[in-house]
């Protein structure tokens, strides 16, 4: 039944008479009309025609009257009690906290971002320092290193990532070779496609493809896993049992990544070269034997080491960013989601930054 009301004056007294059901499903219809009412002074409430009532209905009555009714006519099973209960709770109606709008909000966000960027940098460096010191301490006493844990991470984070890394690296080799064959042909230099593939895969693509894939696959897994442990207080349990999370969680992952990243990079490099080799063979008619000879004779071995020497840096970044964000997860699900996101973003960002730094450095060294 629809909610209705009647607002009348009866011998000098103002009366608000309720009719129909006043429940959460029906009061929407009278909400605006009641807001327009201005009941100053004492009001008598008439419940004679009232059907069912709930807290929503009681609240509308209380809001309209601005307080408890002066007098009540008619009987109702629950209305009086409900209005009393609602009246008790209503004193605490409050304003929503202000939110910034417009330009102010933009400044607010920029400020917060700058501060958080500074804090993140400091925390990352702090974590790097602590991790390396714990690693050094453990390496001096290798019996304390959790090898089982480390090997298990090597399998899940390294070995299981091998197929996808090799496959993608192969594709990148193919793409670079196609690009070379096409662009270099304009200069009549398409034979140098071999050098293009070899230089780019050895120096850059092998290691960068591996690191970016590990950032998406392994780094995020570290954060999610450790973050979930943090949320369920497993990390706290470790601490009170006298287990250092740095030793039990961070160092095994660091060791696993340090061991596996070079291996994965090496295999990714081979796969990239294979992709280039197949395209050169198919498109340019350079036989595999010739391709290999050209690479062996024409490309200094330093290029291979330029690529490989970046891998420990990548490994440290990937392992530590993943672990740090996991350990800094809060107690709720939202914070876990945020941490995984920033973990992946920071890891990929740093992979590229490290790569650029190395590129500039080697350029200056003339390698």
């Amino acid at each position, binding site marked *: 039944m629809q909610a209705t009301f009647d607002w009348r004056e009866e011998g000098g007294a103002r009366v608000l008479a309720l009719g129909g059901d006043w*429940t*959460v*499903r029906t*009061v*929407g219809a009278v*909400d*605006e009309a009641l807001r327009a009412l201005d009941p100053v002074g004492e009001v008598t409430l008439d419940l004679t025609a009232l059907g069912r009532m*709930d*807290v*929503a209905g009681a*609240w*509308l009555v209380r*809001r309209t009257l601005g307080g408890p009714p002066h007098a009540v006519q008619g009987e109702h*099973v*629950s209305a009086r*009690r*409900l209005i*009393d*209960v*609602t009246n008790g*709770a*209503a004193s*605490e*109606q*409050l304003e*929503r*906290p202000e939110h910034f709008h417009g330009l102010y909000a933009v400044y607010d966000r920029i400020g917060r971002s700058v501060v958080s960027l500074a804090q993140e940098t400091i925390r990352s460096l702090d974590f790097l320092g602590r991790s390396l010191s714990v690693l050094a301490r453990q390496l001096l006493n290798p019996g304390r290193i959790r090898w089982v844990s480390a090997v298990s991470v090597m399998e899940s984070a390294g070995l299981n990532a091998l197929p996808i890394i090799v496959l993608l690296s192969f594709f990148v080799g193919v793409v670079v070779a196609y690009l070379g064959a096409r662009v270099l042909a304009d200069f009549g230099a398409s034979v140098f496609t071999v050098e293009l593939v070899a230089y780019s895969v050895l120096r850059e693509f092998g290691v960068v493809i591996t690191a970016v894939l590990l950032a998406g696959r392994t780094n995020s897994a570290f954060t999610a896993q450790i973050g979930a442990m943090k949320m369920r207080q497993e990390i706290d349990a470790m601490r009170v049992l006298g287990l250092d999370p740095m030793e039990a969680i961070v160092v095994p992952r660091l060791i696993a990544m340090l061991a596996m990243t070079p291996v994965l990079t090496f295999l990714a490099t081979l796969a990239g070269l294979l992709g280039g080799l197949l395209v050169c063979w198919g498109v340019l008619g350079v036989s595999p034997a010739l391709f290999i000879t050209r690479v062996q004779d024409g490309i200094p071995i330093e290029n291979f080491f330029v690529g490989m020497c970046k891998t420990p840096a990548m490994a440290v970044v990937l392992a530590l960013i993943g672990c740090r964000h996991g350990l800094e997860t*809060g*107690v*709720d*699900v*939202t*914070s876990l989601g945020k941490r995984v996101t920033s973990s992946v973003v920071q890891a990929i960002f740093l992979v590229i930054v490290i790569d650029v730094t190395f590129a500039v450095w080697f350029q200056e060294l003339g390698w």
Partner: protein
Amino acid sequence: MSGEVAIRVRGLVTRFGEQVVHDGLDLDVLQGEILGVVGPSGTGKSVLLREIVGLDAPTDGEIDVFGQRLAALDRDARFEVEKRWGVMFQEGALFSSLTVHENVEAPFREHTDLAPDLIAELAAIKLSLAGLDADSHFKMPAQLSGGMRKRAALARALALDPELLFLDEPTAGLDPVTAGRFDALLKELARALGLTVFLVTHDLDTLAAVCDRICVLYEGKVAAIGTLEEVRAGATGWIADYFSGPRGRAALGKER
């Protein structure tokens, strides 16, 4: 309390693989009563609750809520029944991406066409009815203590003024003072709003303070049902241990 039956369970059987949780369970929850469901851990109290509200399907048996067989209803009819109950889960289950206030607003936004202003007012009323002070309304659930979270969860369960309220261990993990306040609040709200309450609990104080009737689940069946005095009078085996152990005596001593 009218004599009408709000929830009728007949011949309920639940099996998880080899494990038999309910073995031909019969239960009536009367309209307007607060029924406390107790039993040793693992007797399927929470499972029973989940099956009544349709989150889990029983292996066999019939469950009627408000005289309607839920499993047989189509989507819209089921929706109508679901609007008439509120459920509060053990850990509160507040949506962690919304503020406490938005959590309580959520059912209004979903199921009513009230104006946003009115929804905000009603959410604030529900929260203060549940005993949450004004400071916490706009906090995120993660910023609240366990007791506050339970209150917020109660406010959300009560949002649409349900006739039937399911509570899964509402006082578990609360300190005795907070739990006592929660009991008083529950009793007051249930009386004022004429609620039917299905209350799963381990807390003897809650049983003694708020429940009209008590239902003991044991070995897959309802081992005893009735007022606290009736259940205690006929108590044997586990039920006797439950009510006359040191915790039971401490909680019920004042009732003697």
